[in-house]
């Protein structure tokens, strides 16, 4: 199993979820994050003083998937989240030793 983590623009969540549902993936966990990269931040002005905000709001999505679903999931996310402009984000994949479903205690693939 793998853990797919994606850091994306905030407003793509709906589209990403729809794309995942189309791949029969419904479980996922989302959190807020701030990202720094090539995308430029913006300027804020308070009483005439200008400040540069370097970090931009991002979503961070985590999905545990079966090994042979990884490619499909990554493609689905990337496809739905792509705007083509700098700042679309990253997806990374990490190996997972084990998964547990808390409710039942099921392990491994059954738990996903």
């Amino acid at each position, binding site marked *: 199993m793998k853990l797919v983590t994606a850091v994306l623009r905030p407003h793509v969540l709906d589209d990403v979820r729809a794309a995942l549902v189309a791949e029969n993936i419904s479980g996922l966990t989302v959190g*807020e*994050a*701030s990202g720094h990269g090539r995308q430029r931040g913006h300027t804020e002005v308070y009483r005439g003083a200008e400040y*540069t*905000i*370097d970090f931009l*709001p991002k*979503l961070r999505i985590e999905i545990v998937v079966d090994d042979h679903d990884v490619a499909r999931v990554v493609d689905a996310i990337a496809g739905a989240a792509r705007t083509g402009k700098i700042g679309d984000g990253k997806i990374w994949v990490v190996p997972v030793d084990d998964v547990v479903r808390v409710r039942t205690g099921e392990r491994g693939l059954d738990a996903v």
Partner: protein
Amino acid sequence: MTGEREDMGTIDSGDTAWVLICGALVLLMTPGLACFYAGMVRAKHVLGMFMNNYVAIAVVSVTWVVIGYSIAFDRTLGGLTGRLGMAGLRNAAGGVPGFPHLTIPPLAFMSFQLMFAIITAALLSGAVADRMRLGAYVTFVAVWSVVVYAPLAHWSFSPEGWLAHRGLLDFAGGTVVEICSGASALALALVVGPRRGWPRELMAPHNLPLTLLGAGLLWFGWLGFNAGSALSAGAIAAQAVVNTHLAGVGGLLGWLVVERKITGHATTLGAISGAVAGLVAVTPAAGFVDTLPALLLGAVAGVVSLVAVRLKFRFRYDDSLDVVGVHFAGGVVGTLFVGLFASRGVNPGVGHQGLLLGGGFTQLGIQALGVLAAAVWSFAMSYLIAWFLRAVLAVRVDPGDEVVGLDSTQHAEAAYDLGSSSGVGRFGA
């Protein structure tokens, strides 16, 4: 718009302007209280608290107009209750029994008093925060406003009521508003039972700025609450403004100083809790005592409240937002204090000088009687009503809903949705 001023004989435009605007200030106290309270609950119960306050405005307005005002201020039946001749506000524009020299339109008086009934009811919501069903709360408040509050208002506020007739001095509601809300809140909290997890779990305020803003609105409104009770814009109103303000000041300082001594910290919630305690305590006294006694009264009330709010942990009743500790305790202190410092120099309406001004124990005795009557009546009747309600309907929300929060489960709303534009996403310089 009419553009012309109607002439109603004894109506004084200055007094009318004063009482009308003071009524508006008292109305504002309930949204202020909603903020004050809502800031103190956890983030998942915020709207439940607002709801209780706003429906209190609505429900009590209806019961007051329909019957409460008549019970409180129509001609008396043996000093115990007003008659029902002004039910539905029939004849209410004609005058107020017992107030022959009123210089304001009787409806201005009626609505000023309505705002008192509202805020007293709204105060109760603090004792049963985060767990009481809206339907049960609404039912309780409706019945209570007619059966408990209105008669007590008759006793103390109508010159024909038995307490007022005996000479009770209650300028703006030490008995009617403060003791009544405190004692009723205790009864309600006992019947409804504590919040899940109390007192083990941390139930810290979720938004103290909201609470602090609410306290500011309360303080502002309280000037109208107390000084409007002069029913005219003159020296007594001015004295009441000064006294009210200074008692708030005294309470703030009293609480802070002692709190810092005990816990090592001066907290903002402590500061405004003390201020509110002082404002509560001066409510019966505002137009009867002199300036420095008012400051002293506030300080005493601040300290007493600081102690009193701790009692719930000892006696294990979950008076969630300290209605008992602040309003009952403050109301008792203030009402008795009038017996010590009432001054004919300040207000010719004072029958007996206070004990410490050489007037002997007479007034203090009457004040103690008022305290006792208000406390016993309010507690016993409220307990009865609440107990009866618990017997016939669910007074608490489903325990699971209590965990998830009133806002989403009862009101299908979320207080906040600050999304990604708050906090996260704003690092950096």
